[in-house]
């Protein structure tokens, strides 16, 4: 349609006998580029997640994946894990006690290495900086997930060493109405998942507000008669003895430049003998002061009040650890467009963390535990004819961990259908409260990574894009969790990291679209973190695969009915699965597996009502979730084939 209009405009201007001034005005509305295909529309959507100035996916100074609500709905994702598994480089592994966390590019990345944000609020907890993933997050309430597949420390600080997952909910973006959604997951053993949520948002000229709630109930696995050989408890039916139950409340208020957001993120998970729970509140107040067309200054005040990773035994519901952690944070960010071609972004950050033992057992001695942190960061973006140049740095100092300084340099350019990115960043992880408190030698210093990335991409046709990137990650002073007979500790190890390759191919036609991606990584064989290795190989780390292939296809059967198929093939892994005859941990090979998921989605069955039906793990592979280090837990048995029913309804307010 756009093409036809353009042609009409072109011809009418060209052949008009007498030219008028408005013909010139018409010219001003014409794009310098050919009409966008659906794929180009997606690629040309601008993002500020990796820069101070909005740039398209192919020009932004980071390797970016963007997943839209439409894609989430069509694939019928049950939780964030289903989405992350389709993104190059991402997978999940077990931490301890059936708690699952993220791995990235072949590295265990649960604690402080991947920053998760929902509507701008940090989800990583204050004690360990981890995020439990299984059945977590209101996936059907998400408008967009922007993932920087690379370091984000220069902008985002000490929890974004390897990647950033930036989630924007519908209520905080484009919803102007009421939306409700629910998911039911059924296994041969019974109901395995019941999630539901509701959102309401009203966007006014002077005042906007939004409110959302989400709760879920699920088991971690439905294997019967299971006992962890490391722990040695009595065999248990996991569908009854395990849970992964999230709760989420979200409130937003906006008037002109002033905005407030308050959030609660609760999560409770259990293995057969122990529970772990998060009760995390956060709130932020910020004001975007637009001084003039070029300059915006945004002061922000953040308060977090959490009881993260409280754990104890399920039999008597008694607590073993219950700590309250709070953070007061103030920051001021400046965004200045020096010219149309030059943007400067920078700011100062101060926060103080405090932890206190709610069980009054003297966990922190006689006093409360404090961390004080100051940071200053700045980066400039210069859009030059030859390339966009981004350079910047962050300096941070912490009262216990010491200093960290990380520079960043990026060259990106899109030349017609070709684009390239050359990226070099240093990034760091600031030790969280428990990382520092449990330091085996009294102190851990910030972990630091040097990451080099190169991406090239080409759009062969308006509907087709191929991009390939290679990366090299060298991590030093690796903050490592040690689960020993004497207790839990943290220590700095000198070296770890991986290198690898990611390939993404997308094709988007009117009736169908497909995405194929392949990820490969190999461990740095000189890594000194011995618990990351298994005896069988030096080329991949424990619990994590070197190869992943994802094929996703979606076909529009009718205007309203779509069929989605996802194939996720994970290469062989090695993990600690039991004890040998001498009672030492023994690693074994876990064979490769393929997850096949299908989902049928019917939009607007009646206006606003969407119904979806799907099968997850069609082949009933039940892939186990191993621990990503030698840490005294056997792999979590996988869930069996799951039949999923999804319902969502949206009623829009009249404008």
């Amino acid at each position, binding site marked *: 349609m756009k093409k036809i209009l353009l042609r009409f405009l*072109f011809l009418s*201007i*060209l052949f008009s006998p007498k*030219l008028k*001034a408005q*013909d*010139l*005005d018409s*010219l*001003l*509305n*014409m*794009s*310098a*580029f*050919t009409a966008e295909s659906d794929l*180009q529309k997606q690629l*040309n959507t601008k993002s500020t997640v990796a820069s101070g100035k*909005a740039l398209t996916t192919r020009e932004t100074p980071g390797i970016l994946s963007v997943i839209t609500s439409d894609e989430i709905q069509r694939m019928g994702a049950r939780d964030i894990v289903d989405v992350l598994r389709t993104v190059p480089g991402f997978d999940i592994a077990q931490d301890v006690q059936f708690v699952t966390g993220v791995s990235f590019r072949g590295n265990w990345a649960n604690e402080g290495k991947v920053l998760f944000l929902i509507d701008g609020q940090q989800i990583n907890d204050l004690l360990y900086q981890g995020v439990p993933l299984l059945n977590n997050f209101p996936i059907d309430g998400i408008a967009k997930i922007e993932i920087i597949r690379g370091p984000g420390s220069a902008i985002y600080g000490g929890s974004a060493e390897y990647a950033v997952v930036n989630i924007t909910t519908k209520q905080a973006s484009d919803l102007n109405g009421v939306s409700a959604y629910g998911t039911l997951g059924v296994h041969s053993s019974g109901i395995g998942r019941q999630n539901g949520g509701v959102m309401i948002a009203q966007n006014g000229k002077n005042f906007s507000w939004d409110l959302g709630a989400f709760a879920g109930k699920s088991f971690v696995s439905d294997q019967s008669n299971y006992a962890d050989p490391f722990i040695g408890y009595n065999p248990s039916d996991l569908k009854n003895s395990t849970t992964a139950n999230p709760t989420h409340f979200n409130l937003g208020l906006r008037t002109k430049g002033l905005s407030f957001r308050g959030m609660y993120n609760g999560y409770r998970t259990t293995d057969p003998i122990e529970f772990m729970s998060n009760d995390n509140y956060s709130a932020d107040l910020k004001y975007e002061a637009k001084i003039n067309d070029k300059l915006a200054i945004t002061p922000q005040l953040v308060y977090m009040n959490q009881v993260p990773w409280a754990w104890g035994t399920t039999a008597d519901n008694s607590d073993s650890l219950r700590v309250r952690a709070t953070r007061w944070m103030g920051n001021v960010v400046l965004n200045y467009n020096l010219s*149309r071609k030059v943007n400067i972004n920078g700011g100062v950050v101060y926060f103080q963390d405090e932890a206190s033992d709610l069980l009054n057992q003297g966990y922190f001695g006689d006093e409360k535990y404090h961390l004080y942190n100051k940071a200053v960061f700045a980066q400039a973006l210069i859009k030059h*004819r030859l390339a966009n140049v981004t350079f910047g740095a962050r300096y941070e100092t912490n009262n216990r961990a010491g200093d960290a300084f990380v520079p960043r340099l990026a060259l990106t350019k899109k030349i*017609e*259908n*070709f684009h*390239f990115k050359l990226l070099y960043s240093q990034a760091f992880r600031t030790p969280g409260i428990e990382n520092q408190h449990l330091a085996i030698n009294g102190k851990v210093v910030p972990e630091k990574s040097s990451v080099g990335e*190169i991406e*090239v*991409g*080409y*759009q*062969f*046709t*308006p509907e087709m894009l*191929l991009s*390939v*990137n*290679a990366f*090299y990650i060298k991590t030093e002073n690796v903050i490592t969790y040690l689960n020993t007979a004497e207790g839990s500790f943290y220590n700095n190890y000198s070296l770890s990291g991986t*290198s*690898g*390759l990611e*390939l993404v191919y997308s094709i988007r036609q009117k009736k169908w679209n497909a995405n194929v991606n392949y990820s*490969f990584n190999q461990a740095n064989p000189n890594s000194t973190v011995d618990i990351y290795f298994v005896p069988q190989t030096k080329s991949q780390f424990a619990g994590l695969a070197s190869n992943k292939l994802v094929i996703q296809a979606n076909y529009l059967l009718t205007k309203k009915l779509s069929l989605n198929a996802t194939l996720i093939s994970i290469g062989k892994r090695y993990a600690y699965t039991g004890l040998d005859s001498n009672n030492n941990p023994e690693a074994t090979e876990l064979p490769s597996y393929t997850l096949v998921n299908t989902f049928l989605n019917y939009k607007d069955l009646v206006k606003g009502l969407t119904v979806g039906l799907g099968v997850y793990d069609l082949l009933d592979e039940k892939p186990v979730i191993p621990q990503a280090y030698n840490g005294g837990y056997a792999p979590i048995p996988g869930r069996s084939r799951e039949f999923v029913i999804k319902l969502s309804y949206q009623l829009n307010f009249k404008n």
Partner: protein
Amino acid sequence: MKKIIIISFLVSCSSIIANAQTTNYKVYSLFILNIARFSSWPESESKEFKIAVLGKSKIYEELVKSAEGKSINEAKIIVTQVESANEAMDAHIIFVADGKSSALTELKQATEEKPIMIIAEREGLFKKGAAMSFVILDNSSLRFDLNSKELEKRKIKISKNLRDVANTTI
């Protein structure tokens, strides 16, 4: 690691061989024809209005298509592609393709004070002697920047309407 670098290199090479464009030169050509229509040159006896494209560019094909059978003030529009300034000394407009941007200084000297309007594809060249140069705004719309002194020197006049739609004027 070596393997990875080789594969990346091969993919990038195969990418460069592929041929596809997204710049809409039809819109560029439309701008040029309208700039011609809203401008006036010192009187001459020529019955042809000549537009020369300096360097290889897809705009040449678009201009040929768009100008076919058309005229400017009753002078037939003739579009040519040239490789050097010397071949375009009788043109009314010389469009400098992006790849020939480095030839602008030489072109300016060769056509000094002649009634030739130099329009450059590359952004910013209006400051370096082109009468106009194109600029793509953040919303992807096309505009031109204007060097009115350069036009005055060459005794080319443009209408107020055209002047008003310039992005920047010096």
